[in-house]
């Protein structure tokens, strides 16, 4: 009896090994190397901002410290500074915060909201002339004080409105805009009143300092001619 042929079952195929994780890994490594290398090259090329602490040590030689006249020099400089220091009644104007302070012997006796210059530049289309509407910085003096002031409008007041400045000087006078009092501080700059009270506290002027009615009257009464004005 012939033997029954043995049925051969094919051996189980080995589990198929996917290559894609290896390929992906290689790609990632390659990209990483390229990116890292490029970054390193770029970083080497670049000049980033580096901070180092500011050395606050003064660099005046010590030999000078031994000289006997140091004390005299110090006293002289301190005396000079003391002589220059504002005294009595003076006015301080903060052009950023739009505040005016009247100071007497180092004490603020009145603080007021004011308006100061916009900082805008106006250009005359006819000749390119420019006006900068800045409130001046530094020290000035109240040169004169006027009750019921009249404003002689300068050219820029017309140019700003798109108007030609008039040839007749009588067309320049305006008795309403400056309020009841004006304190002239030189070069055409004035501390005066305003018709636009709602704009107090903002930088809206052409360089003058505008005050509300009550503050202006107080200033007019308490700041005599010659009062120093410090604007910053």
């Amino acid at each position, binding site marked *: 009896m012939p033997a029954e042929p043995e049925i051969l079952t094919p051996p189980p195929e080995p589990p198929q090994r996917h290559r894609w994780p290896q390929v992906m890994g290689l790609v990632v490594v390659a990209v990483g190397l390229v990116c890292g290398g490029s970054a390193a090259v770029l970083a080497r090329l*670049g000049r*980033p*901002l*580096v*901070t180092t602490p*500011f050395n*606050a040590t003064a660099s005046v030689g010590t030999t000078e410290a031994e000289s006997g006249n140091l004390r005299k020099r110090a006293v002289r*400089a301190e005396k000079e500074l003391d002589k*220059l220091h504002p005294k009595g009644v003076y006015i301080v104007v903060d052009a950023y915060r739009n505040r005016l302070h009247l100071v007497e012997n180092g004490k603020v006796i009145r603080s007021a909201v004011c308006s100061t210059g916009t900082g805008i530049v106006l250009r005359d289309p006819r000749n390119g002339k420019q006006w900068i509407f800045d409130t001046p910085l530094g*020290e000035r003096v109240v040169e004169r004080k006027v009750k019921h002031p009249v404003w002689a409008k300068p050219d820029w007041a017309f140019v700003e409105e798109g108007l030609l400045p008039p040839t007749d000087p009588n067309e320049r006078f305006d008795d309403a805009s400056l309020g009841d009092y004006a304190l002239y501080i030189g070069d055409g700059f004035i501390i005066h009143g305003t018709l636009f009270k709602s704009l107090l506290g903002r930088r809206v002027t052409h360089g003058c300092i505008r005050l509300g009615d009550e503050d202006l009257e107080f200033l007019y009464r308490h700041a005599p001619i010659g009062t120093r004005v410090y604007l910053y």
Partner: protein
Amino acid sequence: MRRSALACISISLAALCARAGDVPPDASRVAALELEARLAKKPFVYLVLDPQRRVLEVKARGAVLDTVQLKGIEVISQQPLLTRRAPNRPPIPAVWTLSVGPGDTDREVIAPTELRPAPKEGEEEVEPTPAAAPSGPMPTPTQVHVPPPSYRSRLANGWDLWITDRLPPQSALGTFTAAVRDGWQRLRGLGEDHPPAVTLAMADEDARRVHHLMRTGTAILVASEL
């Protein structure tokens, strides 16, 4: 005799003690005082930077008008990566002067295109002919100019004065990223070289507040413990 000898010794000891306590003033302080006295003679506002107290004072005639508290004072310079060679800072005490400041340059300019005759008193102003409607997008209304919280000014000594509310990142990663970014800009030919800057870090409001003081000619006295 013994008493007088004791008295002599005690007097000379007292004199010695007095001389020992008689310390001459610091030379740098005297130099700073003299510089300030010279500045205060002029009717201008000047600034005093005290790196030790970390304050910037606005002064005129020796009087403090305003004080700004600083968050930090640093020297900032552009350097290749992994280099920490701080440039030699200008000597102090000294007066630094601004040669170009943003207080001069950051300005809005208005210019009417043409001027028409002013109307006479009692005369009705003729209504100008309305211009043709613009075909492009409508212009946005003019905003009130707000100074930036970070800006550079050029000093006459070749340095910059950088006022900022935020110092550049100084972590290793931050510096590396900045180096890569700058390297990329340089590769494209857009890289910029700035002179080293003394950087004053302050609150953004304070940075805006002193912006208008940074004008050409503004003097800054740099002195410690004035």
